[in-house]
């Protein structure tokens, strides 16, 4: 259970987040919506350790994770994906997955150096990498550099890499951006399958229909404040939400 309580964030003289509360359970999809500039990415940054909240607290399974650096947060099980730069240039699908599978390994420098290409047991790692590759439809792209993949496959790779770290919660930052409709549908299917694996998802998406369709619960941010929360149907018809989207520049 991931809990963010009373998150405030200020950049210089500008407040980006005002007293935001958020909860993500281990088998649910929580949608985070809001017009551009509402603070969605900042919130993800604050939860995952990339941005230090000015005030507030983030907890995971009862333990405070607010002050931790991003890699520790990821090791604990809260993993984020990125909006634009979601892949590693020059890395093949194979290499990307190998990196994610072993990234959090506790082995130190010398131990890793003496272990050859795999920080752990080769059989196990290769099997897992293969499983993820097949599951996310990346088998045709195994050896290709990630930047040559179509965007839909790049997002799938990003999700595969996140899954490789064996997360409890994934914070997805606009995974649908730049995808075609069929790619988005496929992405949606992948995302809906996550709760059944015991993975909670915080889904930040610009595509309102997609968020409302996939989420169990939804939060709406506008100008750094939570202006609505509830089930998708409740939020869909909420006046303040409609005004926030129509009133601002989208």
């Amino acid at each position, binding site marked *: 259970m991931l809990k963010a309580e009373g998150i405030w964030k200020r950049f210089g003289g500008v407040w980006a987040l005002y007293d935001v509360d958020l909860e993500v359970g281990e088998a649910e999809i929580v949608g985070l919506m809001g017009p551009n500039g509402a603070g969605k990415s900042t919130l993800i940054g604050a939860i*995952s350790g*990339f941005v230090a909240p000015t005030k507030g607290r983030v907890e995971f399974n009862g333990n405070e994770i607010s002050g931790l*650096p*991003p*890699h520790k947060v*990821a*090791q604990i099980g809260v*993993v*984020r*994906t*990125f909006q634009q*730069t*979601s*892949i*590693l*240039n*020059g*890395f093949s699908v*194979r*290499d990307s997955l*190998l*990196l*994610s599978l*072993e*990234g*959090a*390994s506790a082995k130190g*420098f010398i131990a*890793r*150096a*003496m*272990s*050859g*290409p*795999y*920080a752990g047991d*080769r059989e196990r790692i*290769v099997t897992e*990498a293969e499983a993820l590759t097949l599951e996310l439809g990346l088998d045709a792209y*195994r*050896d290709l550099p990630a930047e040559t993949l179509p965007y839909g496959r790049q997002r799938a790779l990003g999700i595969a*890499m*996140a899954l*490789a*770290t064996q997360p409890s919660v994934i914070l997805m930052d606009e995974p649908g951006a730049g995808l075609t409709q069929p790619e988005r549908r496929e992405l949606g299917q992948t995302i809906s399958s996550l709760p059944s694996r015991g993975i909670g998802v915080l889904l930040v998406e610009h595509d309102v229909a997609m968020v409302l369709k996939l989420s169990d619960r939804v939060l709406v941010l506008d100008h750094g404040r939570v202006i609505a929360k509830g089930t998708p149907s409740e939020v869909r018809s909420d006046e303040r939400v409609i005004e926030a989207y129509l009133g601002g520049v989208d």
Partner: protein
Amino acid sequence: MRRSRRDIFSMLRAATAQDGLSNYPSGSLLGPWELTTVLVMALTLTLVAVLAGNDSFYMHIATTVVITAGFALSLGVITRVGYWSLGHASFMGLGAYASVLAVTKLAMPIVVGLVCAMLIGGLTAAPIGAVLMRLRGAYFIMVTFALGELVRLTFVSESSIFGGSGGITKIPPLVFTGLGGRFSSPLFSAYLLASALLVSEMVILLTIVRSSIGRIWDSIRENPDLAESQGIPIHRYKVYAFVIGGAMAGLAGALQAHYLQFISPSMYDFSQSIKPIVAVIVGGSAFLVGPLLGASLLGPLPELFREWHEYERIFYGITLALVVLLMPYGVVGFVRRMVDRFRRA
């Protein structure tokens, strides 16, 4: 007796095994690429020694190139994580002075001096890297430039320790005692030692880069935020690279000091920091051999252009500009592209 010999052989075989199962790399410490590289290096170095023979001019060039290559390689480790240090000569200087002072003031044997050089290079690099690598890109470039100048000025100002701007002379040379013939000539000894050390460094680096550390370093260079989000402690691994680079630079500095038998602060100035940068760029920063290649191409230049060093500067500068404009991945990158294109056609 026989059993232990067989175990050793099977261990060796296992260490270089090729798994045909899939295209995932085999679990061995060194793969075919790594072994080939080391073999080619060793052969080239031997060939050069044989060809140069007793000609001290060519041996001198060869030895200088080998030492410079080690220095360039040390920077190549740091550029691998995407950091370009404009003050790397300071670690070379620190190692040089460490060794020289240990040998001249503390009467240590040269081997101990070399070890000190590596230790000092690595130990000073640790806190410096830990602090400076919090910066990125242009800011790191500028701060390492300032660092380089600061260290050089300190070599000058603390003349009681470092001998001032006049430097330290009459440094004992590298000589292998106890071996007759060629081995006792300082020129050849220096070449032998420098080459042996370079090959050893290469073996170690190839092992490290082939392991998961190489993947981590590459991910830090390509997309540090993404790497961090996968649970990788990127800062720690950045500093590892910086420390290894510093230690290797220190060793190169010590080798050079004992070879030239003279050091002074002006040897570790900004222009000395530029040299490995140019070597890495020209040779190519994507592969470990790039800096070696760059150093081999650029190293002999001062000697070849001996009479006309103005022309050397002109040539050097234009080469640098052209390489960046036309061959951004250096010679190695260029060759690789040609090979790929050839294979596809």
